[in-house]
């Protein structure tokens, strides 16, 4: 069993290690190793297309994560605390969002955004970032809602009731009691939404506007035309940054008293 676990970990890390190593490839093509060097990292600076793509991805990631977190947290709180006849319908909609493959979202959003932007004249839907934010926020909103709801359902409502009995107005009760209680779930959901957005390739490839190509779409087009080591170099930098961000969130969560297993579970969305 232990041997099996070691094998699984090897399997999980193999391609990541390969990318890490190959980001120091000095050859012309990523796939064929030439010799060791830092050329690919230097090349990033001189190629504005790469930098622009990463910036677009980060911008989209942050905006769509904030949006999905706000929408999802509110919906999750409503689902857990004030259920009504709307709940099955809303859960049904969420399930539908979750089970619909990305490619369907993609082909559906493209004509829809064109319709909103061109026919209805809503200029914002012609903006590249806005389009990507819309596309990336759908699945994440559902995910954040699930995470927040499951966290809150596991928590006793007595604190909120006590606040109500002490005449705290609804808004204050929400910001001072409910929100701090769900904070780990909100953070985990936000982080998940951010990475989901950074990863999003299919929807982004369809709805992107030229001039604001996100990073994965840039990589995808490079897969078709020829992969250069710079791509691995950017991935290495992004991996280091992501790991840093995760470590930061883990530290915050640990401060708030969760055990390591709980943190991992919250981050995994369970």
């Amino acid at each position, binding site marked *: 069993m232990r041997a099996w676990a070691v094998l*699984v970990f090897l399997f999980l890390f193999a391609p990541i290690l*390969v*990318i890490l190593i190959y980001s120091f490839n000095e050859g012309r093509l990523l796939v064929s190793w030439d010799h060791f060097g830092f050329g690919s990292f230097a090349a990033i600076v001189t190629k504005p297309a790469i930098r622009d793509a990463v910036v677009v991805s980060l911008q989209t990631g942050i905006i769509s994560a904030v949006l999905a977190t706000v929408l999802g947290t509110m919906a999750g709180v409503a689902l857990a605390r004030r259920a009504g006849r709307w709940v099955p319908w809303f859960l049904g909609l969420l399930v539908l969002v979750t089970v619909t493959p*990305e490619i369907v979202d993609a082909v559906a959003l493209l004509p829809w955004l064109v319709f909103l932007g061109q026919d209805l004249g809503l200029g914002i839907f012609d903006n590249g970032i806005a389009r990507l934010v819309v596309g990336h926020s759908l699945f994440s909103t559902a995910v954040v809602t699930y995470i927040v709801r499951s966290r809150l359902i596991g928590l006793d409502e007595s604190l909120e009731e006590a606040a109500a009995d002490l005449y705290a107005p609804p808004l204050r009760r929400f910001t001072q009691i409910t929100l701090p209680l769900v904070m780990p779930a909100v953070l985990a959901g936000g982080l998940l939404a951010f990475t989901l957005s950074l990863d999003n390739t299919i929807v982004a490839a*369809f709805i992107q506007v030229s001039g604001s190509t996100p990073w994965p779409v840039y990589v995808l087009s490079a897969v078709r035309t020829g992969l250069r080591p710079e791509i691995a170099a950017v991935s290495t930098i992004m991996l280091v940054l992501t790991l840093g961000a995760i470590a930061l969130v883990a530290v915050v969560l640990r401060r708030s008293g969760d055990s390591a297993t709980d943190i991992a579970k919250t981050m995994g969305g369970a």
Partner: protein
Amino acid sequence: MTTQLEAIGAAALQSEPPSAASAPGRDWKRLPRAILAFPAWAWLIAFFLAPVGMVIWFSFGYKPGMFGTHANDVLSLDRYAEALSPTFFATFQNTLWVGVTGTLIILAISVPFAYWLALKAPMRHRGILLAMVMIPFWTNFLIRTIGWQIILAPEGFFSQVLQTLGITDGPLEIMFTRTAVLIGVVYNYLPLMVLPLFVAFDRVTLSLREASKDLGAGRWSTFLHITLPLAKPGLIVGVLLVYIPLMGDYITATVLGGAKGNMAGQMVANQFQTAQNWALGSAMAVVLILTILGTAALAGLIAWLGTWPMRARRRLVLGVEK
């Protein structure tokens, strides 16, 4: 009265004691909080339900001439017939094969792995180990897949190692085959199965398994009759989390499968991007969703029927009437 009944119903849905929600005078609290869900409602209706509804509407139309993408003045089911014609049907079959085989392999890898992680791994390392499972999950999907392209390349390092060890005669000829696609999808979706399974196994407390052991059950018996049934919710979540995106994925197949790794998602994308036949593409998209829902329901039914004898026996042994 009605509102009270509603409140009780709502409380039952949340599986909480009804006392809190049904207490009189608390109803005023409900209004502002239900409104909290409104922005998410509006957002998902505007950018999910409406566009997907439009695609379903397109699927009943046709492609008018060379330059049009869709028209709906004559409605028919002809696009569905076209989407299921032999050429396209083969792709749906291939997608289903990759989806089902991939999910089964992932299941076979992750059940023992998650079991070890949740119940056997040293307690103080569990958090770290779990985080390690998630690292690939936090690395860009496309980049991970490109990593496999490097590993599986015929002139690559792995291929040379296999040749030196004498495991294969010639260079590795996996790239751009269905096997490569399978390796790619198994890799890409594995963490999505491990995490819910871990949580599920984690809930099975030691005392229950010890009780089973004390009552004379062997290791396998305990696993099959205690641990696995208790982990069932996680198992179902994991299968759905893996199977659904896997069926829609075509990026892995594009990177690792080349032309042979044709998936239904690619076919839908082609109709929209290259062939400019939105009506046919929409019908294919609808068929894809229906395939996913249909096979998931079928799998659920088979699992339910398959475990029925076991459940019936257990009820008999314990004498529990339900």
